[in-house]
């Protein structure tokens, strides 16, 4: 794992280890097992929030229906937060992502609802993919442009993207003179996770099995690699313990997702189409929603980029010491342009999910989203001083924040009070993180 989170080296001699094994402290277990403590803390916080809301709401929070909805609601912010991690790690910021989401969403909507149907005919099978690719291109270009101004012209990212926040918001209004563009292409709507945008129960289980196999394979590869080079591998009890928890989490989440059935009307239609005998009370699982599938794919790809390729390592190196990165021969400016470009592409993907979910695009799309995205990254352990932050952390951060909002909605808390709570939680989360960091570094 790159810079993000230190996994302290185990240096105690075997004798001491054995002597104290009878009353091994939690701290030493965590250390020997190489568990990321910050991530562990966040999972703990998430569980606490869930349990609390479940009690306060009289048991309606921890239902399959609510958790399924929560997973879909988190997706837009989660997708963008993974990109924001890279930006913040390089000691930059992107305030423009909410407005970018609007201008890209509006472009994609206009393409599929007005421009392309004129050329190809309404409902043409290529419309959705052309719109999506065009949107991603627009995102990449906007991101690269802002990144280039930051890296090569030297205008602070705060200013460049603050300008972007105004420019792209205005542009999104201008594109359609403030009209609401609807409806979206039928196939495109699948991206939003609506009634057709789920992969069904069977595929959800297949995906879960693939996920479990991947966990085992990756852990086995890592262990083999260490043994090959003669490094001490993680103790077997830790490997088995972590593996069991991860697989348990995947299986558990899948079981919960799949216990949320289609609404009766939809289920009846589905049964007729698939030749299943329909009877009252037949439950057909919806399965994983497409936006959640997109989050999973994005998170895996982004984690891979952050931890396993040169670009990611350079992003963290720049955050750790920009001067050292330059002296090491890293093209730091180009790396920053790339980070902003990735952010633009992810914003485009999030925009596609958003307009597909709403089945419409308005110029007000994505308002304040930039702040939620930054907050998700920061709650997820990304340091605004740069150099520190992880992709899984950011996704969890997004989930923590959405859980708070959804929980309060469920309990009928007024919107202004919701904002107050989210704001306070953001500050507390960073305060705890700062305290934790100070203690670790001394």
């Amino acid at each position: 794992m790159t810079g993000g989170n230190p996994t302290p080296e185990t240096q105690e001699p075997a004798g001491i280890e054995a002597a104290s094994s009878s009353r091994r402290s939690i701290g030493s277990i965590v250390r020997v097992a190489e568990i990321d403590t910050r991530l562990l803390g966040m999972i703990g916080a998430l569980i606490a929030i869930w349990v609390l809301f479940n009690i306060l709401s009289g048991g309606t929070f921890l239902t399959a229906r609510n958790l399924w909805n929560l997973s879909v609601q988190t997706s837009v912010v989660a997708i963008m937060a993974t990109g924001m991690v890279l930006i913040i790690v390089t000691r930059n910021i992107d305030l423009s992502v909410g407005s970018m989401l609007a201008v890209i969403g509006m472009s994609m909507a206009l393409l599929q609802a007005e421009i392309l149907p004129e050329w190809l005919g309404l409902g043409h099978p290529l419309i959705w993919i052309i719109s999506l690719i065009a949107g991603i291109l627009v995102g990449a270009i906007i991101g690269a442009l802002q990144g280039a101004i930051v890296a090569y012209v030297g205008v602070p990212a705060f200013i460049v993207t603050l300008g972007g926040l105004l420019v792209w918001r205005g542009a999104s209004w201008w594109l359609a003179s403030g009209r609401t563009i609807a409806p979206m292409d039928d196939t495109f709507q699948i991206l939003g996770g609506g009634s057709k945008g789920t992969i069904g129960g069977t595929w959800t289980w297949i995906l879960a099995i693939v996920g479990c196999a991947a966990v085992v394979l990756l852990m086995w590869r890592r262990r083999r690699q260490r043994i090959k080079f003669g490094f001490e591998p993680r103790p077997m009890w830790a490997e088995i313990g972590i593996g069991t928890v991860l697989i348990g989490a995947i299986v558990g989440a899948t079981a919960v997702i799949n216990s949320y059935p289609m609404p009766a009307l939809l289920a009846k239609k589905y049964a007729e189409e698939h030749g299943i005998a329909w009877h009252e009370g037949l439950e057909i699982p919806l399965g994983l929603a497409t936006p959640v599938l997109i989050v999973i794919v994005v998170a895996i790809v982004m984690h891979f980029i952050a931890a396993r390729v040169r670009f990611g390592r350079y992003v963290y190196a720049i955050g750790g010491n920009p001067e050292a990165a330059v002296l090491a021969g890293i093209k730091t400016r180009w790396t920053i342009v790339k980070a902003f470009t990735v952010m633009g592409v992810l914003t485009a993907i999030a925009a596609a999910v958003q307009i597909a979910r709403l089945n419409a695009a308005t110029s007000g799309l994505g308002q304040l989203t930039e702040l939620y995205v930054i907050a998700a990254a920061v709650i997820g352990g990304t340091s605004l001083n740069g150099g520190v932050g992880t992709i899984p952390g950011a996704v969890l951060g997004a989930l923590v924040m959405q859980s708070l909002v959804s929980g309060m909605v469920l309990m009928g808390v007024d919107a202004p009070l919701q904002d107050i709570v989210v704001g306070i939680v953001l500050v507390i989360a960073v305060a705890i993180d700062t305290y934790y960091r100070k203690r670790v570094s001394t």
Partner: protein
Amino acid sequence: MTDTQVRTPLVEMKNIKVAFGGVHAVDDVSVDLFGGEVVAIVGGNGAGKTTLIRTLSGAHPADSGEIFIDGEQVTIHNPRDAKGFGVETIYQTLALAENQNAPSNMFLGRELKTTWGTLDDAAMEDAFRKVMARLNPKFLNFRVPVQSLSGGQRQSIAIAKAVYFNARIIIMDEPTAALGPAETAQVGELIRQLKSEGIGIFLISHDIHDVFDLADRIAVMHTGNLAGVVNKVDVTKDEVLAMIIMGKRASEVTDTDIEELH
């Protein structure tokens, strides 16, 4: 033993000029370095030692002047170019990415990759462990961010980098400034070892004792100019001090100058 007169210098820097605004930080300085030799560059604060050497390491290109390596003229625009010519630099600030571990720092900018094109962290750690076993066997913190390491340990990472990538020319900018006595002795030992392997070393130092201990020749800089290059065996510490402070050529330093110093 070949005669020094006929041997081609490993590095030849000719008429190097660097100006910041109107200030001539380095003004028409020429120095050379042979393989297996330590040339110390000394001078007061602001004498232009570091600026001179940054033109060779690629950190700041010269405004004018020529650099020859193995007798061939080269152009060095950035640190990558310098590394390509076998020039490794150990900076005073040590230039480490604080949030990365030691192996990542050693390979920063030149990471090892697997056949899949991904970072091969295990191979990098393995290579680092092997180099470090030779340089500093007590170094065992392979996976913690370097910000938590001591000055000496951080120094060994910087040196490990130069050793691993088979540097032919090593620039050391105040290598012992942040170190305790034992660690300083260790760096001295290392410099002698590298020298015996035929590596040429530019040593920038404030410490006149270090310089006399390690260097073969001493280049004295004074307000951006070269006051002179002397063989260590031909001069006394006092004479070098006089050159550093007054900027006089070695031959111009008189006994009265030295007396004034005391």
